């Protein structure tokens, strides 16, 4: 009988890959049980669940059904000061040498002196009774110089290390910078980085709250930042992932061009140019599991230009039908005296469309888009006000009216 060693459970993690998908599922869905997570072993589920329950203790709820126990990360994101899911970024594993050298080297260098690697190795031993070989100390010094914590100066053949002199609390306008950091850490790409700055601030209470706040975005920040880096470097990349819709794995070679954010649906996309197919497509960022640079892309600028040309007639992210356009005309009934707010909403949300007054309380909204199917959720939101819809895509209009009938059957005439 072969007995495999069971890896010891650890609170910290080496990479975000596994926990990212489990945390997303527990937060977005929160009703799946152990047996629903069949892609990995039950042991993996147990370890990730235990980890997440430990990290997010205050936000965990449980439910019990005939299928088993489900775990949910439950957060009203309009009431929190800080994104609790940032915790995943602060759980990286490390070695004993890592943590010891972190505190001892910074302690030595905090005297504002400059030291060579051999001098530091000697000082660790003589002043702290901490014996390390020179290679190990040198490795840590190089790592911290790359990260910006240390500065290095060459003195002849000797490299002299010192602590960098840039501290968050010594930047200009420190209080206002704290406010800006607290704000932007919740809403921008890589926001967790802002939270690491705020971790160094004592006794700060944020005055900001956020509505329509998609906190799960932080789980994709590593992929997002890498995409933005490759966009800047104009790289051809190997991209792999799992489709959110079908669950099928995919891989492709493509040039990432720009990031698209839908603040209504909570999804984020990357527009890519795929070289074998010679077409533009939008990939969900939360479906991407890995991205690596392959080569420089000489035609990046022309692909980017092509992507920008689509923007004026895009309603959402669909690039279907980008070689043609569809016209949509909607006649609304709006009480001009009492419902000006409805007209304001149409103007505010109506993208590149035009709103024209036809008669008292009768308005025409007209727009030209690539894919009018993307408009149907928005049109449904004006239930009870639509007199007529006309357009070049008959199928979309027919589906719209079929949905109204289905809704009428569902809710009936009333009691």
């Amino acid at each position, binding site marked *: 009988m072969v007995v495999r060693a069971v890896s010891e459970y650890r609170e910290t993690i080496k990479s975000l890959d596994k926990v990212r998908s489990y945390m997303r599922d527990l937060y977005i869905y929160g009703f799946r049980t152990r047996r629903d997570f069949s892609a990995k072993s039950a042991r993996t589920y147990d370890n990730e669940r235990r980890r997440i329950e430990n990290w997010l203790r205050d936000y965990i709820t449980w439910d019990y059904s005939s299928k088993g126990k489900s775990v949910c990360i439950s957060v009203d994101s309009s009431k929190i000061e800080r994104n609790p899911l940032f915790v995943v970024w602060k759980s990286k594993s490390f070695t004993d040498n890592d943590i010891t050298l972190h505190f001892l080297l910074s302690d030595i260098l905090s005297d504002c002196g400059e030291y060579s690697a051999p001098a530091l190795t000697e000082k660790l031993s003589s002043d702290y009774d901490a014996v390390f070989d020179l290679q190990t100390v040198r490795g840590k010094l190089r790592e911290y110089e790359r990260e910006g914590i240390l500065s290095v100066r060459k003195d002849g053949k000797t490299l002299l290390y010192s602590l960098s002199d840039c501290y968050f609390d010594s930047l200009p*306008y420190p209080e206002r910078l704290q406010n800006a950091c607290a704000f932007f850490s919740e809403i921008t790409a890589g926001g967790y980085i802002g939270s690491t700055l705020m971790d160094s601030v004592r006794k700060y209470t944020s005055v900001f709250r956020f509505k329509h706040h998609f906190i799960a975005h932080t789980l994709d920040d590593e992929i997002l930042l890498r995409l*933005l880096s490759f966009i800047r470097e104009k790289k051809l990349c190997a991209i792999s992932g799992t489709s959110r819709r079908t669950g099928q794995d995919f891989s492709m070679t493509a040039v990432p061009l720009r990031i698209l954010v839908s603040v209504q649906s909570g999804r984020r996309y990357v527009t890519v140019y795929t070289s074998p197919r010679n077409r533009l497509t939008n990939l969900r960022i939360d479906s991407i599991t890995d991205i690596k640079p392959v080569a420089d892309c000489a035609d990046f600028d022309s692909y980017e230009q092509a992507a920008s040309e689509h923007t004026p007639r895009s309603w959402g992210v669909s690039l279907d039908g980008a070689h043609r356009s569809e016209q949509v005309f909607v006649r609304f009934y709006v009480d001009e005296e009492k419902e000006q707010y409805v007209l304001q909403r149409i103007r505010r949300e109506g993208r590149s469309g035009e709103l024209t007054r036809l008669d008292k309380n009768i308005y025409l909204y007209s727009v030209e888009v690539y894919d009018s199917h993307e408009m149907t959720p928005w049109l449904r939101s004006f239930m009870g006000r639509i007199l007529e819809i006309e357009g070049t895509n008959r199928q979309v209009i027919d589906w719209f009216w079929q949905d109204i009938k289905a809704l009428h059957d569902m809710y009936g005439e009333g009691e």
Partner: protein
Amino acid sequence: MEYFSEIYGEYYRAVAAVLSCALKAPLTEKDIYNIIRQNAFEESALYIAPKLISGEWNLLRQENGLFYPVTKREARIPMTHLQKAWLLSVLEDKRCSAFFDESEKDEIRDSLDLTPLYDNDKIAVVDACADGDSYSDSEYCSNFRTILNAIRTKEILRILYTGGKGTKVWGSFLPCRLEYSNRDDKMRLHAVKLHSGKAVFASTINLGRIEKVIPSGEFCEKEIDIDKAAKKRSHTETAVIELTDQRNALERFMVQFASYDKHTRHDGDTDKYICSVSYNSSDETELLIRLLSFGPVIRVLSPDSLVTEMRRRINRQFELMGR
């Protein structure tokens, strides 16, 4: 630059806290466990404390049952390149003009001396509202900073703004919080309206509609709970929604409503999902519109107010169809 690094981790912060406390006064084992629990995760103490106490990490030394730091000074770690680069990207965000003017941003940039982490112009919002706040408007920015400062100092402000129905409103307010929505790109002030120094009710004011903000020079001495004041005008309600997983509805609904506090279960008999969504009653119309946008793949079961309004609009639409 490492995006994911132990340098930013809870463990390093917890150990820094232990060393900081030990520099002020020697610690007992119990002290060490307590400090770690306050600064890291619940189970962290089980891992960190033995390593510190045994001397394995060589950061504490023991003497007569008490623990002293091996380090001589408070740990103070400079900013990393990643942190600086992120801050530089933030300075390029148009909304940052509300916090700093251009010369102030330049001063901060000069201190950081690096390239921004990413280019903001490579990120586009596809469905932003057209009437987002005007962050480049100097009066808007001035009002924003005055309000931000007043929240911190608890100074009462005299505010003139245009209300939802176009009427001008003037009054004394104690500003409490600023709420931002990515969805409509607007900043809103949550404040308590005062009359003769007493809290009257909670108010939500769009910063874009504020015409004047005047610091009064008066400060509020007592603590005012804005959430308690807000409860007088609205309350938490729960909508129960039945969802059929057609047209990828489950994934769309769950992602779109992820920002709400919700609870979902699967009904094995009907193969439908029952989702309870908590919301503020003052946001019921906004919720209604979002639910309508899903069409017949969802059915609202409660509360009655929501179901009644859904039914009214659907019936009205069905009537209009008949014409």
